């Protein structure tokens, strides 16, 4: 069927380069358009997907850090203690962890101790470890960095902090 635009003789100045859109389908004729784009995006996601292990005893902070990471398309596993994190890592229950992000101060094992254990382990030492803390204590920060922490983030953690971080580690 010809569109009304094509029927008019185009003048040299106004000849349309863009083909006129077909008239809209009636509701009954509308078909569902297969969503090819989504499939491609999903494949992308898996290929680029980083798996982050987030450790924090605060349920609020776990929810926030998980959301920030997932918004950047990372897969996130959250745990509430460093002991649990080590268990999962050593037992191979969280395979392919690309990064560990942990609160500094937690009851039981601290994030600093977790950092040391990870760096002492031949199996785990290559995994970058990021420490989060609500307190800006220079000694603490330098001790963590000396022990091999990838970075130190001050809480409350912002999306911009995390995206900067993940871009470096990728």
């Amino acid at each position, binding site marked *: 069927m010809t569109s009304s635009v094509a029927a008019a003789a185009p003048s040299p100045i106004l000849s349309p380069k863009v083909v006129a859109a077909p008239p809209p389908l009636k509701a009954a004729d509308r078909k569902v358009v297969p969503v090819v784009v989504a499939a491609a995006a999903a494949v992308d996601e898996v290929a680029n997907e980083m798996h982050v292990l987030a450790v924090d005893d605060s*349920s609020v902070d776990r929810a926030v850090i998980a959301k920030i990471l997932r918004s950047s398309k990372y897969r996130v596993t959250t745990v509430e203690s460093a002991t649990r994190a080590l268990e999962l890592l050593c037992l191979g229950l969280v395979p392919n962890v690309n990064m560990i992000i942990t609160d500094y101060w937690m009851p039981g094992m601290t994030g600093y101790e977790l950092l040391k254990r990870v760096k002492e382990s031949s199996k785990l030492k290559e995994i970058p470890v990021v420490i989060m803390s609500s307190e800006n204590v220079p000694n603490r920060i330098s001790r963590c960095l000396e022990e091999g922490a990838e970075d130190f983030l001050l809480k409350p953690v912002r999306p911009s902090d995390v995206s900067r971080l993940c871009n470096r580690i990728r």
Partner: protein
Amino acid sequence: MAGAALRDQLSALLSSMFSQGLVDEQFEQLQMLQDEGGTPGFVAEVVTLFCDDAERIIAEIATLLEQPIVSFDKVDAFVHQLKGSSASVGAQKVKFTCMQFRQFCQEKSRDGCLMALAVVRNEFYDLRNKFQTMLQLEQQIQAYDHKQQ
């Protein structure tokens, strides 16, 4: 109530929460995360976690302060936790009160701590009420929008 009126109410509520310093930029960041991700319910989830947490901590602190001999270290640890989660959710006023509360813990002042506890409790209840109204309005708006489709 019409959708526009509900939205106006929600907007006015959020405006006043920000201008009164009840919530700060961190809360705004959480709202943005929710909007960008297209995941309604994130703010509700975090707010609920915060309120549950705060309620528990306030009760623990109250119990500790009732003891004949107060363990100020333990009180301080709880206040530190509350300060942390209020900072993470953007509950600015509660966060600031926690900072002052920690001073009283350092000074080992039972009276100071009891006073700070009363203030933090009031501020938390006030904030919780506003959060609850906010979530109710959001639900009403969603329900209204859904009906319109």
